[in-house]
C-alpha cells in the first residue's frame, strides 16, 4: 500500500507519480496540482485536504468542439450582452468547501473569467466571462483541465430554471407569517376577560386590519390548495385539499360577515394560522434533493452535438438538426444518437446502455446499428437512417410516457381518509344546521359554518408532510434518495419486486476474477496488467482492475484484434491475451463464464475466469424481502448465471433471461394487470421502460449524481443490503401516520362538541387549531426521529 494521493486521496500504489516531492496516484492528478500550484491556488489543498477529483480517462481534444457552434452555445448561455456572457454549468463533482473556493477563483486561472459563483445544493457554477478573451469551449476545457467536468446534456439545453417555485413558496410563507403575527396581536384583547367591552372603535379597527391582512393570504398564499382541489374534483377524487379549501372559504366568509356587521373580529387569526402551518408543512416536505435528477429521459444520455462529414470537411452540428441521410463520425467511447448504417470503420458496439450486456458486439459494414450503442475502438462513419426522435430506443421511451398518464397512481391514504372525512363533516354540519333550524333558526347557519370551520383538516393535512418529510430525511442520511414523499407510501404497498441482474444485483465494475492454470509470478501479473491497460474492452479493464500495482514498462508492438484478443511485447516478452481460439488455437468454445486465455513467456499459462460478482449481502436481502414479497429477476444476459441464482431466489420460473427492454416493460405490465403492485429495481437505460411502468421504480447507482434513468428513488449501491430495513421503516412511518390521524380526530371531536351546539367562539378556534397542529407535527417528527435511531438508519 502506498501513500494517499495529495490531490484526490486515493491510494497511490507502489509506484506513485512524484511531483514537488509529493505523491500522486496518476498523471492526471499531478497535472491538476501543477496547474493550481503555478497559479498560486495551492490553498485549495489547505481548505480541505485531498479535495481533488480523480478523472480516469482524459477525453479527446475535440470533445467540446461543438461548443464553438453558435446555436448550441446560445442555448447554454443564460445571459449575453455584447461580449459579456453568463453561463450556468452543472458540475456533479462539487462536494466541499475547496470546490467552492477554487471555482470562485477561476479568474486567477484565466483573465477572461470576470466572476464565478457556486450554488452548492444545485451543484452549479455560474460563470460570467468575456468572450473576447475566452470562448465557451475554452472555458469548459479549463474546468475539465482542473477535473471539474461539467455535465452538458440536451435536456439542460431545453429547459430553464425551476428556481421560481421554491422562491414563491418562501414568499408565501413570509407573507402568511407576517399576517399571522399581526392578526394574533389584534385578536388577543378579545380573548382576555372583559375583551367584549372594547367598544365599536377598536372592534371595528382591529376587524378591518385583520380583514386587510387576510386578503393576501387567502387570495395569494393559499391559491395552490384551491387549484389542487379543483383538479382533484375534475378527476372525481376528493383529495385533502377539498376540505381545506372548504374550511378556508367558510372561515373567510364567516369572519368577513362578523367584521362588517361589527359583531366581533371573526376567526381571521385561525384562518391565517392555518394557511401558515400548511405552507410550512409544504416547505418541509418539498425540501428535496436539488442536485439529483429523477426525470431524466433519453435526452440526458445523448450527446449535445454530432460530427458530420460534409463537403467542407468535418462539422459539428446540434443533435436536433440531424437529418436522415447525414453522414456522422462516431469516435471511441461516443454514443450513437440515431439508428444508422455503418459505412466504414471497425464497429465494436457496446450496447450496455440498452441491453445491460457490457461485452461489445462486432458489426460489419452495411450493418444496421441502433441508437444507444457506444463505439469502442477507432472512429467509424455512419449514415443516419432515422432521426433521433424516431429511433427504436426513443420510441420505447416516448411510448411509456403516454401510457403512464392514463394510468392512475395508487391512491394515497390521505386521499382515502379525506374522502370520507369530507362526507362525514358535511353531513354533521347539515344535521346540526337542520337541528337548529327546527329548534332555534337564528343559530342554524352559525352551527353549520362552525362545524366546517372547526373540522378544517389542518392537523390531518400536516400529518403526511411531516411524517413522510422526516422519513425522507432519514432515508437520505442512509443513502436512499426519494423523488417525493408519495414514494414512501407506495413502497409499503408493493407486493412484487422485480430485479434487474447486471449492475443491480451484480457489481457493474468489479468482476469475480480467478486464474486457472500455473500461478503467475508477481512480475508476470504486472506485465499482464501493462498489456491489459492498453485496451478498453470490458474484459481487459476487469483484468487490469484485478491486478494491484503499477507496471512500469512500455508495451511494444501492441495490437488489438477485434473479438479475438490483444497482443504485445512487454519487457521483451510476448504476451497474448484473448479467447481460447486466439491463444491456444483450439476452437471448442465454452459459452458459460467468460474465459480469457493468457500466453506468456512462450507458454500458455492458463486462463482468467471472469464471472459476475454479486453484491454483498444479496442472499440476506433476498431472504428478508421474500417473506413479504414475490421476487422476480429479469436479465438481458444469457442463462449462464441461472444455476448460481436459483438457490438464492428459489423459484425457477421467476428467473427470466434474454429479456429485451421491451420484454422487461411488458413483464411489469403483465404483473400489474394481475393486480400486483410492482417495484422495479434497475440501473441502466435498458431498465428505463420497466422503471417507468412500475409503481415504484428504484435505481441503484455507484455515483448518485451521475447517469440514472427516470425513477422514483435512487439508492446508493453500497447501501443495497439495507433495502429490507427501508421497507420495514416505511411500514413504521405508515403507522405513525395512522396514529397522528387518530390524534387529530380526537381534537376534531372536541371542537365539534362546541360547534354543533352553536357556541363556537373565536377563542376556542384560536386555541384548538394551533394546538392540534403543533401536537401532530411534534408527534410525527419526534416519533420518526426516535424510530430511526431505534432501527439504526
Amino acid at each position, binding site marked *: 500500500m502506498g501513500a494517499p494521493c495529495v490531490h484526490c486521496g486515493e491510494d497511490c500504489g507502489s509506484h506513485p507519480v512524484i511531483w514537488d516531492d509529493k505523491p500522486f496516484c496518476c498523471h492526471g492528478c499531478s497535472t491538476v496540482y501543477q496547474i493550481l500550484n503555478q497559479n498560486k491556488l495551492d490553498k485549495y489543498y489547505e481548505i480541505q485536504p485531498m479535495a481533488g477529483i480523480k478523472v480516469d480517462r482524459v477525453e479527446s481534444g475535440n470533445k467540446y468542439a461543438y461548443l464553438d457552434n453558435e446555436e448550441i452555445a446560445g442555448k447554454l448561455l443564460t445571459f449575453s450582452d455584447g461580449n459579456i456572457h453568463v453561463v450556468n454549468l452543472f458540475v456533479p463533482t462539487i462536494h466541499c468547501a475547496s470546490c467552492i473556493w477554487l471555482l470562485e477563483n477561476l479568474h486567477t486561472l484565466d483573465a477572461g473569467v470576470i466572476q464565478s459563483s457556486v450554488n452548492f445544493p444545485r451543484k452549479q457554477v455560474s460563470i460570467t466571462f468575456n468572450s473576447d478573451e475566452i470562448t465557451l469551449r475554452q472555458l469548459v476545457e479549463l474546468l475539465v483541465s482542473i477535473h471539474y467536468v461539467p455535465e452538458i446534456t440536451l435536456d439542460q439545453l431545453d429547459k430553464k430554471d425551476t*428556481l421560481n417555485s421554491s422562491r414563491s413558496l418562501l414568499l408565501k410563507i413570509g407573507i402568511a407569517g407576517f399576517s399571522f403575527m399581526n392578526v394574533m396581536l389584534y385578536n388577543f384583547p378579545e380573548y382576555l376577560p372583559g375583551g367584549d367591552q372594547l367598544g365599536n372603535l377598536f372592534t371595528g379597527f382591529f376587524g378591518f386590519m385583520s380583514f386587510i391582512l387576510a386578503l393576501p393570504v387567502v387570495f395569494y398564499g393559499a391559491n395552490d390548495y384551491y387549484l389542487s382541489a379543483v383538479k382533484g374534483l375534475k378527476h372525481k377524487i376528493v383529495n385533502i385539499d377539498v376540505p381545506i379549501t372548504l374550511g378556508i372559504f367558510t372561515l373567510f366568509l364567516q369572519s368577513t360577515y362578523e367584521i362588517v356587521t361589527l359583531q366581533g373580529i371573526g376567526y381571521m387569526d385561525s384562518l391565517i394560522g392555518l394557511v401558515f402551518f400548511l405552507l410550512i408543512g409544504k416547505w418541509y416536505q418539498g425540501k428535496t434533493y436539488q442536485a439529483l435528477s429523477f426525470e431524466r429521459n433519453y435526452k440526458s444520455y445523448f450527446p449535445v452535438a454530432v460530427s458530420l462529414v460534409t463537403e467542407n470537411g468535418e462539422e459539428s452540428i446540434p443533435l436536433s438538426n440531424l437529418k436522415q441521410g447525414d453522414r456522422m463520425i462516431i469516435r471511441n467511447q461516443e454514443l450513437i444518437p440515431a439508428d444508422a448504417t455503418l459505412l466504414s470503420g471497425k464497429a465494436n458496439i457496446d450496447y450496455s446502455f440498452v441491453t445491460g450486456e457490457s461485452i461489445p458486439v462486432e458489426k460489419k459494414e452495411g450493418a444496421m446499428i441502433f441508437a444507444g450503442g457506444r463505439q469502442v475502438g477507432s472512429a467509424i462513419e455512419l449514415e443516419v437512417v432515422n432521426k433521433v426522435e424516431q429511433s427504436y430506443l426513443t420510441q420505447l421511451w416516448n411510448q411509456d410516457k403516454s401510457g403512464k398518464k392514463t394510468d392512475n397512481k395508487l391512491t394515497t391514504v390521505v386521499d382515502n381518509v379525506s374522502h370520507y372525512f369530507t362526507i362525514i363533516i358535511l353531513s354533521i354540519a347539515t344535521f346540526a344546521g337542520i337541528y337548529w333550524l327546527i329548534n332555534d333558526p337564528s343559530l342554524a347557519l352559525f352551527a353549520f359554518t362552525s362545524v366546517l370551520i372547526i373540522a378544517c383538516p389542518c392537523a390531518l393535512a400536516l400529518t403526511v408532510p411531516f411524517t413522510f418529510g422526516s422519513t425522507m430525511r432519514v432515508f437520505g442520511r442512509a443513502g436512499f434518495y426519494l423523488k417525493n414523499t408519495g414514494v414512501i407510501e407506495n413502497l409499503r404497498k408493493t407486493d412484487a419486486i422485480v430485479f434487474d441482474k447486471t449492475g443491480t444485483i451484480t457489481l457493474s465494475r468489479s468482476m469475480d476474477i480467478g486464474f486457472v492454470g500455473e500461478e503467475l509470478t508477481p512480475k508476470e501479473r504486472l506485465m499482464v496488467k501493462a498489456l491489459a491497460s492498453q485496451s478498453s474492452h470490458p474484459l481487459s479493464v476487469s483484468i487490469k482492475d484485478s491486478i494491484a500495482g503499477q507496471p512500469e514498462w512500455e508495451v511494444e508492438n501492441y495490437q488489438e484484434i477485434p473479438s479475438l484478443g490483444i497482443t504485445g511485447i512487454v519487457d521483451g516478452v510476448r504476451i497474448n491475451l484473448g479467447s481460447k481460439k486466439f491463444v491456444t488455437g483450439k476452437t471448442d468454445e465454452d459459452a458459460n463464464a467468460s474465459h480469457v486465455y493468457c500466453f506468456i513467456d512462450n507458454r500458455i499459462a492458463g486462463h482468467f475466469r471472469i464471472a459476475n460478482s454479486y453484491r454483498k449481502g444479496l442472499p440476506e436481502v433476498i431472504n428478508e424481502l421474500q417473506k413479504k414479497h414475490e421476487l422476480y429477476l429479469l436479465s438481458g444476459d444469457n442463462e449462464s448465471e441461472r444455476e448460481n441464482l436459483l438457490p438464492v431466489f428459489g423459484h425457477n420460473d421467476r428467473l427470466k433471461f434474454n429479456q429485451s427492454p421491451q420484454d422487461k416493460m411488458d413483464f411489469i405490465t403483465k404483473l400489474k394487470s394481475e393486480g400486483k403492485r410492482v417495484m422495479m429495481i434497475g440501473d441502466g437505460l435498458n431498465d428505463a421502460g420497466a422503471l417507468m411502468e412500475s409503481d415504484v421504480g428504484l435505481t441503484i447507482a455507484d455515483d448518485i449524481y451521475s447517469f440514472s434513468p427516470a425513477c422514483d428513488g435512487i439508492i446508493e449501491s453500497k447501501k443495497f443490503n439495507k433495502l429490507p430495513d427501508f421497507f420495514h421503516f416505511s411500514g413504521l412511518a405508515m403507522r405513525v401516520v395512522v396514529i397522528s390521524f387518530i390524534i387529530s380526530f380526537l381534537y376534531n371531536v372536541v371542537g365539534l362538541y362546541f360547534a354543533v351546539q352553536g357556541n363556537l367562539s373565536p377563542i376556542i378556534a384560536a386555541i384548538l387549531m394551533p394546538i392540534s397542529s403543533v401536537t401532530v407535527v411534534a408527534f410525527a417528527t419526534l416519533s420518526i426521529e426516535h424510530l430511526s435511531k431505534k432501527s439504526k438508519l
Partner: protein
Amino acid sequence: MSVIIILVIVGIIVAGGFLLGFIWAVRNGQYDDMYSPGVRVLFEDPGKPDPEEQIPDSTKGKEKTTISDK
C-alpha cells in the same frame, strides 16, 4: 386609549419594512443556496493575498462580489 391605533399603524409599518426586506432577499436569490455563503465568508479576500508574492496582474484589485443573479 386611542393611541393604540397609532401604535398599531406604526407597528404594521415597521413589520412591513421587514417583510419587504424578506421579499427582496428571496427574490435576490439569497435563500437559494444556504451552504456556500457560510463557507465563502471564511475565505480570504482574493484581492490581497500575501503582498510579497507576485500574482498574475489580472487578479489584482479584483473585488469579490456577492452572489446575485443579475
